[in-house]
């Protein structure tokens, strides 16, 4: 579907809903294309290709609310779909807080292109994609006798969407992504440690295409001989790519729904110090070609650059229109864009050099956080550090604690930003973490 076709269908569906009894409505339509190839044992293991489209409609009927989606986009089917959805909505209870956003908060089309789409997406030669996946495999074949299995792959995807609302919003956006990965298993006694590495980019030309297989192999080999060590309170360094796992409970606790439903450990903490003063963090939607960059959010609200934590003081919640009304707070946006951490001065090696005894966490294995209290416990693997040097690989251990305490005990923040995610996380040192092992 072209952009114009999507707009035309979206407006038709919205108007049809209004005609059939909804007082307000919003409709978004997206379509996407993707392809992938996975290589194993010097031949193609899987070849996949996909094209899909879908429509989502939000209905506000007599102060009652529902949302519906379908991938059946023929008008005659959509008409019945919308009619039935409206009819069903009438049986719900009224909810005075459900409305579309205030029009003045919508994005007005007044900002430039954030460059999140590779206009040459369709021009990448399918044969080239296959060759790239084979090239990742070739980097490691025959490089180490301990290798049992190598899987490598290439993938790409493009998604285009439009959204219209009955109180005046119209907007469209598009994103592309290209990726390469490698996964290597090696033999060590009984265990068969595996490690993978990946690179991704919005533009095909910017995709890093080398060292992926080698990095996966080296990381797998470094795990040989993993064992658990004694339970102890120690320093923990979390590698940049893994920080999201322990940071996401903080973001969840800032969500309007969690605050209003009393399922957050950061209720009524705005403008209070809740974390170490080493934590300063900005939500920046306008980074050119940022993974999380956008001009408007899922409701059409214009995005803004916001400080989330300033020297450990909480500066904002993530609040959408509905929970904003319930909480009597201004909506900010229900989700993160690009999270930019204020960084320190050392890379990962520099951080390791400062630790007398601790564990560098390079992977999490299960675990969870209690949203109401912040109590957490996660399985981990990584490396024991003694006197500033890595001495052995560890696994089958847990860390346990409370999110508020963990983030109040930051030792140091690294400068090694993980740029392959919208959360631009550096490696971080935490003091006094409870590890359980033997």
């Amino acid at each position, binding site marked *: 579907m072209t952009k114009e076709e999507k707009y035309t269908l979206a407006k038709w569906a919205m108007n049809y809903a209004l005609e059939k009894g909804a007082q307000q409505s919003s409709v978004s339509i997206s379509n996407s294309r993707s392809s992938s190839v996975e290589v194993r044992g010097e031949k193609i293991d899987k070849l996949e290709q*996909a094209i899909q489209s879908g429509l989502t409609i939000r209905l506000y009927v007599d102060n009652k609310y529902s949302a519906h989606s379908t991938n059946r986009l023929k008008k005659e089917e959509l008409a019945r779909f919308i009619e039935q959805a409206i009819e069903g909505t009438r049986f719900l209870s009224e909810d005075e807080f459900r409305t579309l956003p205030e029009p003045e908060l919508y994005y007005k089309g007044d900002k430039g292109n954030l460059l999140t789409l590779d206009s040459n997406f369709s021009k990448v030669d399918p044969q080239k994609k296959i060759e790239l996946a084979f090239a990742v495999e070739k980097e490691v074949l025959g490089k180490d006798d301990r290798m049992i299995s190598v899987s490598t792959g290439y993938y790409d995807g493009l998604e285009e969407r439009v959204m219209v609302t009955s109180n005046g919003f119209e907007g469209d956006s598009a994103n592309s992504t290209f990726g390469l990965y490698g996964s290597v298993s090696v033999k060590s006694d009984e265990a068969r440690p595996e490690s993978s590495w990946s690179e991704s980019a919005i533009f095909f030309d910017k995709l890093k295409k080398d060292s992926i297989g080698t990095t996966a192999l080296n990381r797998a080999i470094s795990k040989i001989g993993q064992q658990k060590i004694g339970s102890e309170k120690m320093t923990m360094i979390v590698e940049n790519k893994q920080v999201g796992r322990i940071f996401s409970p903080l973001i969840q606790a800032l969500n309007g729904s969690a605050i209003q439903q009393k399922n957050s450990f950061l209720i009524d903490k705005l403008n209070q110090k809740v974390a170490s003063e080493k934590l300063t963090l900005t939500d920046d939607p306008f980074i050119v070609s940022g993974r999380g960059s956008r001009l408007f959010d899922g409701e059409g609200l214009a995005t803004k650059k916001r400080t989330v934590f300033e020297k450990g003081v909480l500066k904002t919640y993530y609040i959408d229109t509905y929970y904003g009304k319930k909480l009597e707070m201004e909506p900010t946006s229900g989700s993160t864009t690009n999270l930019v951490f204020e960084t320190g001065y050392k890379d990962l090696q520099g951080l390791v050099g400062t630790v007398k005894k601790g564990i560098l966490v390079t992977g999490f294995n299960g675990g969870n956080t209690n949203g109401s209290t912040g109590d957490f416990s996660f399985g981990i693997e990584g490396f024991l550090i003694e006197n500033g040097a890595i001495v052995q690989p560890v696994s089958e251990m847990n860390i346990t604690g409370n999110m508020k305490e963990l983030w109040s005990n930051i030792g140091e923040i690294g400068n090694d930003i993980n740029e392959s995610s919208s959360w631009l996380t550096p490696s971080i040192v935490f003091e006094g973490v409870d590890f*359980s092992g033997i």
Partner: protein
Amino acid sequence: MNVNRRNFIKTGGAVVAGSMVLPPFMQSCHKLQISENVKSYLDHFEVSAEMLQKVVAAAMSKGGDYADLFFEHKISNNIGLQDGKVNRASSNIDFGVGIRVLKGDQTGYAYSENVSLDDMLNAAKMAASIANENATFKTGELTEKIPSGYYKIVRQWEDVSVKDKVPFVQKINDKVFELDEKVIKVNASLNDETSYILFYNSEGRLTYDYRPMVSFSAFCIMQKGDKIENGYSARSFRKGFEWMDDNLVAEIAKEAVDRTNILFEATKPRAGEMPVVMGAGGSGILLHEAIGHTFEADFNRKGTSIFSDKMGKKVAESFINIIDDGTLENNRGSINIDDEGNDVEKTYLVKDGVLNSYIHDRISSNFYKVNPTGNGRRESFRDIPLPRMRATYMEPGPHSKDDIISNVDYGVYVDNFSNGQVQIGAGDFTFFVKSGYLIEKGKLTRPIKDINIIGNGPQALADISMAANDYLIDNGTWTCGKNGQSVPVTCGLPTVLVKKLTVGGTNA
């Protein structure tokens, strides 16, 4: 099964998702000999047997060894309650066909959301390109496979109006508030799902399935002084609307409140290795994570599982029998056919302590030259089938729960979980304990909460030293993820003692 009715595409009154609405049935002319059942599925997807044969021929045109078509139409509905009112609903309709071509163990895959002959032929040609020679495919004789009936229902969800569902969701809210004055918030939801599946492959097998599913849940928040805690309870089955009643409401409400209440008094155990008693029921997560995934044959044929060279070897005490079962009546993990059109069975993974079978899909059962076990599953028509679990459980053992607990000097008893994970190669698995108890000198003492437990699969299996006679399947909303695909499963376990696992906790 309710598949004999030609008119099973309901337009229903005020069904939120509405069923998908197709134009009046095409008056298809089926030249081949096929039953009314199959005909109704062909009509449902607006295809004919001849079209299926043409698409498979295109899929096989480049010299593939095998091809299959997986048509799926899924209708999902949700109604939800928050702040005392049933004030939200959502629905989703998903429709399409996945086309797969195999050449040895290589897979070509494409799907189409439209089932016109041209759209399907285009997808078939793309999937065909996994092979690269010109070949002519001789259409096999069409054989109909009538699926088993593991989930017969009375009232199809497509026929149930929002109006009839709302009172149950409202009642569960009221019940939770009524049970404890510390309750400050309740979120409740009722999800139902109906899938129509039509399957055809290059061997001529034509089969179908009708898969209902319902999940009913309550999440409550309670406050005691300045402490806030939360708890969750849910039940899920392949059942129809007839399943809903006041007893069910009371059961879920009570469990949600009980599970929250215990947390106010809970502490954390000391960190480290200790005996772990797994309570009957949801503790089946131990089997799912510690051995289930590592028994999936795709990992084993690639040599990447820690169990890759253990077939036929003793892996557990002789009283241990572990099963993966797709045939339990109305169970969330049951399927009448798997997503590769194969029959489903009760598979002994471990028999009398010996590794007896892996969990197979088509590719792996060919590789190991064994019969398929009916474990080839996929999240939707968009996805390649993989070896996946169904209901994974252990048969009762020779001990009693009391004997097991009294055997432990210091350890933990755990029976309420939220999630787990495993690393296939290293064998390290984990599960997160929402609540349980400390065991001190053979007795349950203080409650514990929010701790992760980690172990190593083969070691943990060998360390199950006692199993009780109180086996239970847990009918919560278990969902298993693998390679980005989610499928519904369940698990079960009698009370067992694992001699040693590493328990999250605090250091003195």
